């Protein structure tokens, strides 16, 4: 009888381990990577991408909400980081601190710092040096670059940003988080 009970107990322990193993499997889901985006045509955000809050005339209509499809996606932020170098954004804006062009780590944007403003800025270009990239690079890459620029400003979840840059320099996102952590 005792023997039988010990067998039963062994069985029970084994069942628990099996269930535990199956539960572990449910955590295997990995981040979705959209590696085959469609090369959609560019659309500007006319109304959404306003740079001034002041509007003449009648009541202000609610703004259309534009979201970057790649917010919080580690893969796309990393792709944006690569493209930021490849398309030579760093040639003028350097590592976000600015140089020939204005800095990209800041709160007071000349033409707005929301994703849709950045999209318009990249597509249309801006006076005094910012080239117009519209029709040259696909929209999904512009969104990836925007996701990266936002990450430099600490506007992306830390879990999604790269812990370091592709080169030896420190990732600005890291600096932002570290300094903000220190002051708190």
């Amino acid at each position, binding site marked *: 009888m005792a023997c039988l009970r010990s067998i039963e107990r062994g069985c029970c322990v084994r069942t628990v381990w099996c269930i535990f193993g199956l539960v572990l499997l449910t955590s295997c889901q990995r981040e979705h990577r959209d590696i085959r985006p469609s*090369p959609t045509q560019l659309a500007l955000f006319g109304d959404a991408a306003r740079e001034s809050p002041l509007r003449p005339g009648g009541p202000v209509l609610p703004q259309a909400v534009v979201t970057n499809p790649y917010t919080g996606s580690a893969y796309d932020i990393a792709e944006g980081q690569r493209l930021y170098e490849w398309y030579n954004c760093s040639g003028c804006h350097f590592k976000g601190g600015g140089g020939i062009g204005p800095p990209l780590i800041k709160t007071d944007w000349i033409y707005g710092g929301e994703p849709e403003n950045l999209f318009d800025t990249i597509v249309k270009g801006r006076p005094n040096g910012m080239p117009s990239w519209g029709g040259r690079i696909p929209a*999904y890459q512009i969104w990836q670059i925007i996701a990266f620029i936002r990450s430099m400003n600490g506007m992306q979840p830390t879990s999604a940003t790269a812990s370091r840059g592709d080169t030896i320099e420190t990732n600005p996102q890291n600096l932002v988080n570290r300094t903000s952590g220190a002051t708190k």
Partner: protein
Amino acid sequence: MKARLAASVAPLLLFTGCAGHQQSAIDPAGPQAEHIGMLWWVFFSVLGIIFIAVMAFTLLSLMRGDREIEQEPHEAKEKKLTRIVAGVTIGTVVTLFLLLVSSIVTGKAVSELSQKNGMVIEVTGNQWWWYVRYQNDDPTKIVVTANEIHIPVGRPVMIRGTSNDVIHSFWVPNLHGKRDLIPSRVTTEWIQADKPGIYRGQCAEFCGLQHALMALWVIAEPQNKFNAWMKEQLEPAADPTDPDKERGQQVFLNNACVFCHAIRGTTAAAEIGPDLTHFGSRRSIAAGTLPNTKGNLGGWISDPQGVKPGNHMATIAVNPNELEPLLNYIESLK
């Protein structure tokens, strides 16, 4: 029984497929690969004999059972066993030592290629293609190409390897062993082909999503043919000969293509992707992924992520009526 026999013969038949292959370490085409191939056969035969011997003795002892041993007196049995164990131990040590010696001798032989009259080729690994640059003291004679290395037969060639992103490994089995390409470091390897031929190489260090589709071709040809190839490569890209190709050139220069690719002789001069100056003369598209045909190129340009998911070629929207001239233009860059 018949099935078992067939099952044991089948793997042996596989070996016959190894001869004359474009990518095989036991079909050497150069001095180093010969040393490595020799070492492979030494290891294969020694270890094969040992394996067969071990299996034979296992079978023998299984068939013999305990009876015969038990009949022997205890002391004699003990003595016999001691002798056998000691003998086999010494035999194992000696065998391992001899294999070690042969391995060291091979390593030494491989690094002792005559470097007279050598030439230097820089190979830079990228996710997932090979940048190739022929060094020359005269800067007007530097050739840049991708995924395809032409070398003259019988002449030692130094591969100076590095990487732009992660660690890759340069491996052309018919010519030499593997050499890692490490970011911000330069590693070197001397290769030499003694037979003209086309040898396939493959990245041998896992480097990300498309590691499996990162191949290259080494084309060994006689010195005069190599010189002719070199002369052709030094030329700027052929000018478009008809309005259709002219249109194709405009499509290329007005699209995202120019941000990554170079075509010497035009305004396209980026070095992020493979140089396309003489694309039409190359064997394959996307680092050995597809044979270089117009159809494959069309598929590759319109849907690069479908052909090689995760690669860094941008998916761009080319107008259908612009694709045809673009393909004609790129394929004309011989």
